[in-house]
């Protein structure tokens, strides 16, 4: 269990987590990059700014 740095909720992570993987927070949906695994350290992933058109 690790805290999401965006919303503070607990993020469930799988066992074989690797540095560099991107996971999303189940509460806020933020994309989180795994910076370290022992202890687990997460940072906001550089978001691909998706253009929803206009």
């Amino acid at each position, binding site marked *: 269990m690790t805290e999401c740095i965006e*919303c503070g909720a607990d993020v469930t992570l799988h066992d074989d987590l690797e540095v560099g993987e991107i996971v999303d927070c189940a509460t*806020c*949906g933020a994309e989180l990059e795994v910076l370290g695994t022992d202890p687990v350290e997460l940072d906001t992933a550089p*978001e691909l700014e998706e253009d929803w058109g206009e």
Partner: protein
Amino acid sequence: MRAAVVGGSGFTGGELCRLVDGHPDFELVQATSREYENKTVGHAHPNLRHLDLRFSDPADLESVDVLFAATPHGVSMQHIDAFQDAADTVVDLSADFRLPEASAYDEYYDGHDRPELLADAEYALPELNRDNLPGATLIAAGGCNATASILGLLPLFEADILSGDERVVIDVKVGSSEGGASGGKAASHAERSGVVRPYAPTGHRHEAEISEYLGIDVSFTVHAVDMIRGASATCHVFPDSPVSKGDLWGAYRGSYEDEPFVRLASGGGGVYRYPEPKAVAGSNFAEVGFELDAANKRLVVFSAIDNMMKGSAGQAVHAANIAYGLDETAGLEHTGLHPVGAP
């Protein structure tokens, strides 16, 4: 427990029949309709064709544990004695028992026949009023637009981000089932399809509920859009002091983390980033989320429900579950569909 649905041929009445029939602790023993008396429930609601039940006259009420009234405004206040004679618990979906003060009925409706009963009634919305529901015998399910709005704003009050003096604009978009089964020219498919139609520019009656339960006056405007189920409230909020995203997450997680029927959706990736009716359609879930507009000192709060469920029949069953001490989610397990259209 035995349950009856008065107004069973209507839109919310049909949903109540469906939910009661599928509920592990309730048994549907009666559904009333004057127009469809003696016809099968499936005649009005094709999804219930397999039910072996016929509509009966609302004048002949069976003795039941719980009676759900899904009748137009004014009917319940008129027949409340008969309802309470027939049932231990009455859950009313109309506006008749939502407001505690008779004066509010004078202002927003056409007065009230039985003002002395208003004090007995409990507002059904569990996120707001859970503590008062156990044992309640007269329960008033909230209005659908009011429910969406209150769920969006409540955490801001609980976390003292709003106090009640601020300016709040609520811009609501609703589907056609809100109007009930009765129809009319503006409700015809040819006229109602594809609209973004201002149908209550100002002065909508649900302002009364929001004002009563949150203690704030709101600028409220409702638009009809092209969906059948769903109410979506966009609240534009201007707090007096600056707030951070962290404050907001704290507020919303604080209010809703343990709620079985509220999901937070605020940004993130994919197609569904903020609350929207499609994501909850057919279910009793509400989705709530927010975004910060620092440049304009504004919060935008989004809230989406299915007006047939969280906005009426689902909320009613949820409250009845709590009133009777049942599992809160009993009979309300359906999570909605994906993909889904304009459900």
